[in-house]
């Protein structure tokens, strides 16, 4: 189907590296409720990319990397300044700085194009990502950044965890809150900037959020979540790269994003504990249980009134008490051996009475209700 060539190897390696680092750092961003900071950082990187190119006149990865990092930091600073020093809320500040920086990047991009003739600079690749443009030196830079990011997180694991969960308590223990937050945001920016060539600025948000959000559904431990997010990120990266290499000229970025989004979607639906399907199923079970218990207690009440533990309750009576049709519940109770039906008087409806087990269950239920009240 496709050739496993040199370029593809580069692309896959790069995509995997990007997936791992953005999965790990995205987990922290997600838990710190800064999911869209990644979006802003990515969009804001564009003017830096252009300036890096303008100043050096080449597509060398390092100046572009540094430029992107600087303009991302500037945008993050602008956002923070707007939220802390003006009456704008976070969402408006984020949206404003994201779009303004991007617009400025665009102006620079067209400036470069008009100066150097056609789009030979190839900077358009940064919009949606252009995997084919990846060269080994890019991959090396990505590897360095990914390893540095992972090492930092591994070393400061305990500190980052505490900072993310309870920043006030962290500060009270003497951990410097602001520097740690800045560090975490900076390595996030690193991961984003190295991913620009692959995914592009527009879709970057998803590769930060989706693997982390997916991983969160599968695990209740931060360590496992971060590990899974790295795995999901790598999976999305590699499958996106492979798909795009399968011919047809599909852009790599959108494919990586679709892969990551599908992983997130599947996790949200099918994860065993937090998955929406599992919890809907559980909710249905609980509801059914509750309905069943209501009928059971109705029967218990009637039996109590008649001082006869095996008092046969008429189904019409139960219907009136239950306020609906209790037949399904009665059948389930019967199947569970908690009730049994009797024929009482011909011409009346079916009668049900509690079994001994049913009586005991009703008393237990009442006890536990009384205990909670």
């Amino acid at each position, binding site marked *: 189907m496709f050739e496993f060539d040199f370029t593809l190897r580069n692309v896959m390696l790069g995509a995997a590296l990007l997936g791992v680092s953005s999965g790990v750092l995205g987990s922290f961003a*997600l838990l710190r409720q800064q999911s869209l900071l990644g979006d802003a950082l990515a969009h804001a990187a564009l003017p830096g990319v252009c300036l890096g190119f303008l100043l050096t006149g080449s597509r060398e990865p390092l100046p572009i990397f540094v430029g992107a990092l600087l303009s991302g930091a500037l945008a993050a600073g602008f956002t923070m300044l707007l939220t802390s020093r003006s009456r704008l809320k976070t*969402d408006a500040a984020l949206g404003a700085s994201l779009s303004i920086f991007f617009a400025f990047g665009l102006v620079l991009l067209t400036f470069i194009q008009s100066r150097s003739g056609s789009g030979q600079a190839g900077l358009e690749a940064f919009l949606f990502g252009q995997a084919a443009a990846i060269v080994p030196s890019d991959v090396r830079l990505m590897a360095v950044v990914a390893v540095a990011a992972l090492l930092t997180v591994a070393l400061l694991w305990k500190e980052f965890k505490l900072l993310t969960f309870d920043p006030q308590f962290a500060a009270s223990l003497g951990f410097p809150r602001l520097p740690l937050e800045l560090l975490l945001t900076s390595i996030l920016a690193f991961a984003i900037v190295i991913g620009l060539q692959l995914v592009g600025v527009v879709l970057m948000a998803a590769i930060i959020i989706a693997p982390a959000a997916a991983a969160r559904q599968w695990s209740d431990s931060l360590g496992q979540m971060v590990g899974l997010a790295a795995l999901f990120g790598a999976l999305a990266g590699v499958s996106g790269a492979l798909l795009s290499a399968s011919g047809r000229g599909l852009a790599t*970025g959108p494919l990586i994003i679709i892969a990551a989004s599908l992983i997130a979607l599947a996790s949200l639906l099918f994860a065993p504990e937090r998955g929406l399907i599992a919890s809907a199923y559980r909710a249905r079970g609980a509801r059914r249980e509750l309905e069943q218990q209501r009928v059971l207690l109705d029967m218990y009440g009637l039996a109590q009134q008649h001082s006869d533990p095996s008092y046969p309750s008429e189904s019409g009576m139960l219907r009136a008490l239950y306020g609906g049709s209790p037949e399904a519940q009665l059948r389930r109770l019967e199947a569970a051996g908690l009730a049994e039906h009797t024929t009482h008087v011909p011409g009346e409806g079916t009668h049900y009475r509690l079994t001994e087990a049913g009586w005991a269950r009703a008393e237990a239920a009442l006890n536990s209700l009384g205990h909670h009240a």
Partner: protein
Amino acid sequence: MLEALLTNPSVVVPLVGALVGVASSLVGTFLVLRGSSLLADAISHSVLLGIVLVYLVTGDQYSPFFIAGAAAVGLLTVFLTELLTRSGRVKADAAIGLVYPFLFAIAVVLINVFARNVHIDTDAVLLGEIGFSWLDTVSVGGVEVPNALMTLGAVTLLNALFVGLFYKELKLATFDPGLAAALGFSPVLLYYLLLGLTSVTAVTAFDAVGAVLLVAFIIVPPSAAYLLTDTLWKTLALGVGIAVASSLLGYLAAIWLNVSIGGTMAVCTGVFLVAAFLFGPRYGLVAQRAQRRRQQGENAARTLVVHLYNHESKEEAGRENSVSALRQHLRWDDAKVSQVTAVGREQGLITLGPKRERLFLTDAGRRLAREVWEPWRRE
């Protein structure tokens, strides 16, 4: 004459930009005030999917279905985001970041696969081609009118009508959704209408400015306006004004520098935002700084009189109400001590003892201290 104007790019292009700006900031004002700005970001990206789908189905480049398709996908975006948020599995911001890139990526891939080299190419998706907006024309009563002017004019009118008709309801639903619901207005319906109009605006403006620049037009002018005034109608008016001014200035600058017209217009909205942020009359950074300085001086003087008031009738007064106590107990440095005591004396709040060491409250100082001390006693 009219035709000459309507086929003149240097008239049409800034006019198109202005219309985009006006239509966007009309709906944007309410999004910004509601704290839903990023939904504008999400919608303006995901309407692309609507455009692509309608194109693939109808094969038509100009079809009224675009509006319907875009509105549908825009609302779908909002709906999915809220569904995810409400499920409690992810927070609201993450939900936005999950939904719109997904829809946008699908759209880009669909373009890649089915619609390459046609009307929609991926660069135009992001950047728009406002510079060519004067080329596509339709004939209206024998006059050639640019398409963009017609559609954007209609949408601007629609948005203005919506805001005008539902001004009171929008105001209430924005600032107090609970009360709006209690009074029988449906804030949810209004909200979805607003977001529907945002989607319609997005699809109409897409050709001209593309997804990301549109975000600037929706969010930035209202944000800048919000920093300048407290009144809703003034926020709307200023937002519109800023959008129009940005379009004109942006156009001129872009022509001069030979760079992206839409981009420069968006940058201009940013310039207005920064200006409002720095120099706004009440909320601007400069005004705030002056206010802070005043406040800090005032607070220091108040801290001093409260301190003196607190101790003056007790036995430790001799120790506490002295210049050296300000250093040792309040932990003020010499400069601050001499500055604050100078201000206190200037304002007639305190007097110095004979050795310039003891501090005494004047009646005015005592009054001020009591005001701070027991605010609930004030009328």
